[in-house]
């Protein structure tokens, strides 16, 4: 009975989803500025048709006055919407700033306006698949900024888009698997830090700063959470600590008291649950009511470093530690970020950034714009952007100053070889990104 009905729901879901995708596709690719067709010199050289024929994936052709289409594939609905919306804001601001000012109007790239095709990654493999297919099916998609969640990228969006020769740059995928030699897809890059850095930093914080000697972890089966807790556990043990339990929960469940009772039986010093807003909020509340966890420090990571999580956890959130990129220690242009960028962000979107990856997505979009400038060939106002050359230009990014730091992309698509990871504490119902309780510079090489 249950199987039949969930099948029915699935079919309906697909229908509904395709309707939504169709609706989004038609109304989100509007252009805010009409194209001015000044003569501009593009960085690419040589005969366009020869270059395009030679490129295995061909060229994107942008006619005179037409817009350059950039896709985004971020979580913009559901319990993690503020994570993706924050990143999407960053992308839009990068287009806005092409003309040197944040004025709410997109600037132009090589004399062409920028159009966005915003898709939802749903923070799931299914969402990533549907969104990536919609973007891959549109021949005008030059590049994609996404996904928000590693689960939407791993083996799904990264593969679908790489198969079509469309470059995809993630501002917030931190799952280590995405850039391993076994799993890495040729057109995938990211400006987010690799969780090899974050998991290790959290373990060091717990062991050295909190003085924790025992720890338990919970993940939700996503590649992000599973990868992060594994790195944490490995580092924590190598520092001399003990992992009492490594548990897992189901997404969308609401009652985690049995898992917490099981963990509470050992009363660990630290409970690390690098998951997402809804389940993270419930675990926070229920852990506070579990006897064995009365003195346990709760630590989450950047999937929960958002307004959604703080709202979901309610008053129980007080004192929770959350790790993420150190927004106060970007090695890039800190003055620009704290001053012009943040002010503009508040003016344009009506509030403080609700999550931590707007700067990473801003950098990702600029990386893409720079690469387009480097390879596009302008022939009488029509722009030809060879796909493979675009990807090569992205992977060649090196020593570029972004807001988050210096971007150096390696062969596996990791563009943040060094990142500053911070741990924030929730005090008075909010975490202050300007004042982390712990911060360390970590490097993939060392």
């Amino acid at each position, binding site marked *: 009975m249950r199987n039949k009905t969930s099948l029915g*729901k699935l079919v309906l879901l697909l229908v509904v989803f395709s309707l939504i995708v169709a609706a989004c596709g038609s109304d989100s690719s509007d252009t805010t500025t009409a194209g001015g067709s000044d003569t501009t010199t593009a960085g690419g050289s040589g005969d366009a048709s020869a270059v395009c024929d030679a490129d295995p994936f061909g060229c994107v052709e942008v006619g005179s006055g037409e817009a350059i289409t950039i896709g985004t594939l971020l979580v913009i609905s559901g319990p993690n919407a503020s994570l993706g919306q924050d990143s999407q804001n960053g992308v839009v601001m990068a287009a806005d700033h092409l003309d040197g000012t944040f004025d709410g109007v997109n600037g132009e790239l090589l004399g062409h306006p920028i159009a966005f095709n915003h898709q939802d990654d749903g923070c799931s493999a299914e969402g990533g698949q549907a969104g990536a297919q919609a973007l891959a099916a549109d021949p005008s998609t030059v590049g994609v900024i996404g996904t928000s969640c590693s689960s939407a990228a791993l083996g799904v969006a990264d593969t679908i888009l790489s198969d079509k020769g469309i470059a995809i740059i993630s501002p917030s995928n931190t799952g280590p698997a995405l850039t391993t030699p076994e799993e890495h897809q040729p057109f995938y890059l990211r400006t987010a830090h690799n969780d090899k850095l974050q998991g290790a930093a959290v373990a060091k914080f717990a062991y050295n700063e909190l003085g924790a000697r025992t720890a338990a972890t919970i993940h939700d089966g996503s590649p992000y959470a599973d990868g992060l807790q594994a790195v944490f556990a490995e580092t924590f043990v190598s520092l001399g600590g003990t992992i009492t339990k490594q548990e897992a929960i189901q997404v969308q469940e*609401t009652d985690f008291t049995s898992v917490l*009772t099981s963990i509470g*039986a050992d009363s660990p010093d630290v409970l690390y649950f690098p998951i997402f807003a*809804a389940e993270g909020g419930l675990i926070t*509340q229920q852990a506070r009511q579990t006897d064995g966890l009365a003195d346990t420090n709760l630590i989450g990571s950047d999937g929960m470093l958002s307004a959604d999580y703080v*709202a979901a956890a309610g008053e129980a959130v007080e004192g929770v530690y959350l790790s993420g990129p150190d927004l106060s220690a970007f090695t890039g242009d800190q003055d620009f970020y704290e001053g012009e960028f943040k002010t503009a962000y508040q003016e344009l979107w009506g509030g403080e950034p609700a999550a931590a990856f707007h700067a990473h997505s801003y950098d990702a979009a600029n990386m893409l714009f720079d690469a387009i400038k480097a390879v596009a060939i302008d022939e009488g106002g029509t722009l030809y952007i060879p796909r493979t050359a675009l990807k090569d230009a992205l992977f060649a990014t090196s020593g570029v100053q972004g807001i988050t730091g210096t971007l150096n992309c390696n062969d596996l698509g990791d563009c943040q070889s060094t990142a500053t990871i911070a741990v924030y504490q929730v005090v008075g119902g909010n975490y202050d990104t300007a004042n982390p309780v712990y911060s360390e510079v970590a490097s993939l090489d060392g």
Partner: protein
Amino acid sequence: MTAPAPAPTPTEQSSRRLRFERIPMRRIILIVLSLSIIYGVVAGSTATLRTGVFTAEDWQSLIINGLARGSVYALIAIGYTLVYGILFMINFAHGEVFMSGVYTAYFVAVAFAGNGFLNSNPLIAIAILLLVSMAVSVFVAVILERLAYRPLRGAPRLVPLITAIGASFFLQYTFRGLYGANVRAYPNIEILQGKWTIFGIQMLKTQAIVIVAAMLLWVLLYLFVARTKTGRSMRAVGEDREIASLMGINVDRTIVATFAIGGALAGAAGILYVFLFNQVIFTMGFLPGIKAFTAAVLGGIGSITGAALGGLLLGILEAVGPNLFLTGANVPSPNQLQPVIAFGILVLVLIFLPGGFVGASEEKRA
């Protein structure tokens, strides 16, 4: 056969079924399968208890916890069971009826928390929340019946089922449009914080309240169905709709009453649910809905007692099962397998007791 076989039902005795020589063979396979599962459960449990990881208090709190969530399942399950008892259809949008009330009451709760009323007059505030939640759920349930189900009453059974699934999505996304897509935390109510010690067992105040309130509502409903005129007409319509209408019972009104009662209980269940879980989002009805439906089937769909028993059993299995059965067997991350255990037990029950614990034929239908 050594294991207890279920009493043959009239259909199985019919000559048509007896012609199939294979049936006993199939049943032997099933019994062997079930015995091995039962062996696994017993072995796992003994191993867990021998390790002594969990103290008696831990088990107590797990069971209380299971009872609390089971009570919520039971209240929602009654909505499924009442409608099934009368219309023989499964109202899959019932989870959304549950969501609609409590999600709407959230905004009232936030307003109350804002002006301090929630904590200065908590009992009145909770009563108002309860009323709002129940009223909205009743409204949604009745509208649903009127617009989506009544026009299809003569249609083949599959049609209202598919309509119900469609209505479920329609309601989910309507409420997403109305209230947004974010998770929201219910404001804390101070008098519900903390623990009580009852019969020497420590439990959260919220858990105790949820269990007692659910029992109270169940008793009220039972008396209503058994004693009142509307209750009697509900039973009569469930028995035979045409004859009931010949006897002068207004079938339409009775069916609306059934949906309204199911909705009211779902609305109340919503408030109890946020006492426990403190969180609302537009998709929150789906999983509790599926589980309540499971609970209704487990107990015997069509039976009110069955819904209550099924809900409590499912809650306890979910809470205790993974820790008890799997910890001793050294299964990594046992609690991830919570649904496997709960639904595995459902399959076992359906193999041996196809009508659930309280077979619909034995007890008077809703």
